[in-house]
């Protein structure tokens, strides 16, 4: 039986609302992890649209997250406070939604500005150009005194909660899944599978790439907004190249172009560092091993290399293009 995606969306929103009623009973440490998982799901699923479904390798996703985080935080601090909507440590819901959307649209606009010139590039060049743009965004924010510059930027309130995070995550998954399964969305897959053939069939590949890029940037911006309104303090260094790599690892581990896989990977990779931190406390292990465990990036990099050598389609990826798979199964 196939359930309509809309009922899934509604079910998840209702469940996350019910859970959020009990959120003060959740251990703050676990609560922090839960919210981070939600934010990572949004980032991973969004980036999957670019890196997975459309086959364009972007390495600057943290830059869009930064734009969203700073834009929404600036909205809350300068606009919402001015309207009197952020009194007594509470931000009115309508203003919070506006702040998130402001972050999303700011990031989408940045995505458009960056996507149009850089998506003419392919493969390695695109990866480096997006990396470059991500770093430029960080340097520009560092030089903006209105949002704290290199000192970081503080927010007076934390309206992000379980409900908001998971509702946005559910909407992100819903939009991406419906989009790539629609007639229109097949365009993304053709760009990945064979760009020259797609062009020959009359598909405007550049347009599809830019659209994928802008949508991914929009969700990254909203994720950044949620992050800023959860952590209360954002710093340009928190959105550096390594943050982008974190998101890329989620997409690769989940299997490029495999949304359920990316969700599982987002959960795994958020819990993994916490688990490793516990493991590093075990006294029975030799000191050097505990030292390595404490540095999660060593394990991430080894994971990345091993995965590429043995399972480049990711832990959960089905592998290969849709068409080639069908040829193999004899259904095309």
């Amino acid at each position, binding site marked *: 039986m196939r359930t309509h995606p809309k009922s899934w969306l509604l079910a998840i929103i209702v469940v996350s609302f019910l859970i959020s009623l009990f959120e003060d009973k959740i251990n703050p440490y676990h609560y922090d992890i839960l919210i981070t998982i939600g934010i990572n799901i949004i980032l991973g699923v969004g980036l999957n649209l670019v890196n997975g479904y459309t086959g364009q390798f972007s390495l600057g996703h943290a830059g869009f997250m930064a734009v969203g985080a700073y834009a929404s935080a600036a909205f809350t601090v300068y606009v919402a406070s001015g309207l009197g909507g952020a009194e007594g440590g509470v931000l009115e819901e309508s203003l919070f939604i506006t702040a998130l959307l402001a972050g999303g649209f700011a990031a989408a606009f940045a995505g458009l500005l960056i996507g149009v*010139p850089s998506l003419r590039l392919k493969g390695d060049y695109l*990866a480096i150009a997006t990396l*470059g743009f991500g770093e430029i965004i960080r340097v520009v924010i560092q030089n903006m005194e209105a949002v704290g510059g290199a000192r970081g930027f503080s927010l007076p309130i934390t309206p992000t909660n379980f409900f908001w995070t998971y509702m946005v995550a559910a909407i992100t998954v819903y939009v991406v899944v419906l989009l790539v399964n629609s007639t229109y969305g097949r365009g993304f897959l053709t760009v990945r599978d064979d760009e020259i053939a797609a062009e020959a069939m009359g598909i405007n590949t550049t347009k599809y790439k830019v659209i994928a890029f802008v949508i991914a940037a929009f969700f990254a911006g909203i994720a950044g907004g949620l992050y800023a309104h959860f952590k209360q303090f954002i710093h340009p260094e928190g959105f550096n190249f390594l943050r982008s790599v974190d998101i890329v690892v989620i997409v690769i581990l989940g299997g490029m172009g495999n949304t359920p896989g990316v969700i599982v990977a987002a959960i795994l990779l958020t819990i993994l560092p916490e688990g490793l931190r516990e493991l590093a406390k075990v006294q029975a292990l030799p000191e050097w091993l505990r030292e390595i465990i404490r540095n999660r990036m060593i394990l991430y*990099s080894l994971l990345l290399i091993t995965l590429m050598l043995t399972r480049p389609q990711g832990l959960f990826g089905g592998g290969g293009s849709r068409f080639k798979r069908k040829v193999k199964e004899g259904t095309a």
Partner: protein
Amino acid sequence: MVEFLQQLINGLSLGAIYALIALGYTMVYGVLRFINFAHGDVYMVGAFAGFYLAPWVGRFFPVAEGGGFSWSTTAGAITILLLSMAICAVLGVLIELLVYRPLRSRPRLTVLITAIGVSIFLENFGQFLFGAEPKYFPEILPDRAIEGVGELTITVNQVILLVATGVLLVALRFIVMKTRIGTAMRALSFNPTAASLMGINTSVVISFTFALGSALAAAAGILNAINYPSIDPLMGILPGIKAFVAAVLGGIGNIPGAALGGLILGVLETMVVGYISPMYRDAIAFAVLIIILIIKPSGLLGKAEREKV
């Protein structure tokens, strides 16, 4: 005018470092058509190799007291330079052998992701092995200012850096243009299939290319450390990326282009820091990259390649 000349000299010495690293990117790109993301970290390993070798070499060739010229100091510095170049050559060959070779027939994206993985591994394993805090590179060549050049400040080590870079570039030019293995490298970058049909052992040539590129990166690491002695495991990230930009600027796959691109980028960066704002120091390289990729993706000296169906 004096200030401009001063910036130019500083820019050229920075550019020489970028040029040496950029050569490794461009040579690997020439034979394998992929960006060896881990190359900047080989530069870091080169500097650390020098750091650990210096006390050991110093026992055989003690650094002269007082900082003047002495044969012992010179011999020691050259030994450290050559040994760390050798260590990094081995490292480069090992990386290629263990990681890139099994992926040779895979899509380029897979190789790119792996290269990013290797880069992150070297950085973080370096932090584990050497410690995360910056270290002070020993004075293998005591630095002092050259007198008699008016108001300019030129140090001996800046001159050594520029001269050594020149020597290495000439040596590289000789290897690539005049030796059998250099000819094989050029053949491979021209057409890999035809080269292997002509009896060129592709794997040997690729290993040699990695060794050569990594040795040059190590030389850059040492030559930079004698001028700016603070070294740390993450020092390779930015020079690595900027050197890549230099390679693209000169035309990736083109050896003189990489050297030219490195020098231009070094001068440009120093000028921006000197005349505009030091805050934009790291953004300038990316701005150059994006402009060059949009206006002339084949670079200053590169030839445009058309994609064939």
